[in-house]
């Protein structure tokens, strides 16, 4: 009502007010656009559904005890080989490269088993531990009990280009009942350019998996 009255009888004051309103309208439009842009930008910080379902990682480096609260894993040694000799002395060859990780594990409270780990490159390509080496030959086989350290091997079959800067992620075995936010240990193997080149250029001809 008042608006119509004002419009029918424009005064100097109301005209100045209108001009001010137009200015503030541009300002609020800019502010609105800025807020919308900020909201869109914040969306990119959100987790993707895949990240949301991912295990909770505890990170560490080579030779370090990495404790998730449920289990602790330590990577003792990394080696590369063209052929791996299994516990039953059977040679297994590859066209790629075998990365043999010697690791130790212990549990905090209850006996458990480790799953087959994954080797992850800096660009996020993940290689499951190879099934060419029977799982019974790996650290996924023995029970991991509280108060004891067990050690063993995990073997990955990867192209030589995947070695540099790679990490290994250890978790629990896959089960039908999916547990949310599973614990995971992620160990940086500390393979900088020089060490990676050393591993890939001179892999061992035969790496025997032997209980030490």
């Amino acid at each position, binding site marked *: 009502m008042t608006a*119509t009255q004002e419009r029918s009888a424009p005064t100097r004051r109301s005209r100045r007010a209108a001009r001010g309103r137009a200015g503030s309208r541009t300002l609020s439009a800019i502010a609105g656009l800025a807020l919308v842009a900020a909201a869109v930008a914040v969306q990119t910080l959100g987790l*993707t*559904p*895949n990240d*949301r*379902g991912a295990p909770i990682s505890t990170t560490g480096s080579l030779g370090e005890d990495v404790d998730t609260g449920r289990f602790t894993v330590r990577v003792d040694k990394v080696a590369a080989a063209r052929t791996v000799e299994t516990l039953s002395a059977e040679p*297994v*060859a*590859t*066209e*790629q490269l075998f990365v043999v990780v010697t690791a130790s594990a212990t549990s905090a409270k209850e006996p458990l088993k480790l799953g087959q780990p*994954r080797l992850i490159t800096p660009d*996020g*390509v*993940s*290689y*499951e531990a*190879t*099934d*060419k080496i029977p799982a019974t030959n790996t650290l996924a086989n023995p029970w991991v009990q509280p108060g004891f350290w067990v050690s063993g091997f995990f073997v990955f*079959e*990867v*192209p030589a280009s*995947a070695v540099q800067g790679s990490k290994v992620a250890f978790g629990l075995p896959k089960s039908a009942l999916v547990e949310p936010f599973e614990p995971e240990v992620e160990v940086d193997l500390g393979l900088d350019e020089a060490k990676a080149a050393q591993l890939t250029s001179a892999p061992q001809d035969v790496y025997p998996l032997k209980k030490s």
Partner: protein
Amino acid sequence: MTEPSSGDDSPRRPVLVPAVGLVLATGLGITALLGGLNEVPDPNPPQYSNGQELDQGRFKTQFVEAREVVQKPRFTGDEAKRFLELVFKVTNQGKETARVGMPPAKLEGAFALSSFAGSLVKVSPSLKQQYGPYAYAVSKGVQSQQLQPGVTTTVIVRYDLLGDAPAPEKVTLDVASFEWKPGFNDPSFAWQMVADEVDDAFFPEVKARITLDVKGRGSA
């Protein structure tokens, strides 16, 4: 809104919006009646033969050959075993390890598979099997069920040839493809077989039909 402006006595009826709305609704209705905007499945998928390469999304696959293989008996008195082997060279184009898997026994439900052999949705003629088929990756004589990312591996799908049944002259494979997308009721991304919905059931979309001549037929 309907404030009368000076000089125009009869209020104009807003015609444009309802008219456009009507046209849109009619268009939508006709499109829906004609089967929607989905692509009509191609009744004649592209044909491939020996040695050709196909991009299946998750895998890049070369169809090397089909061959009849005779395995000598290990013990005297046993019969020689005969197999039909389909040979592929498969490159895993994904960022994670894939399974070799098994060709699906039925077309229904096959869309849920994400393994390599799972994409061989129809193999004809269908060969009677007692235990098979059996699929594996092989390199330097070592078998595996894994296809590591970025690596090209030979994959063999092996069918038993029971009794005196002759190997077929030709084998035809209907091959599906994969897409990296969220699941039906799971928002996380994964490799999913490209499938079409027909009468509330999903069927894999045939990306290519491969016809392979069977080599070494009847030898030995």
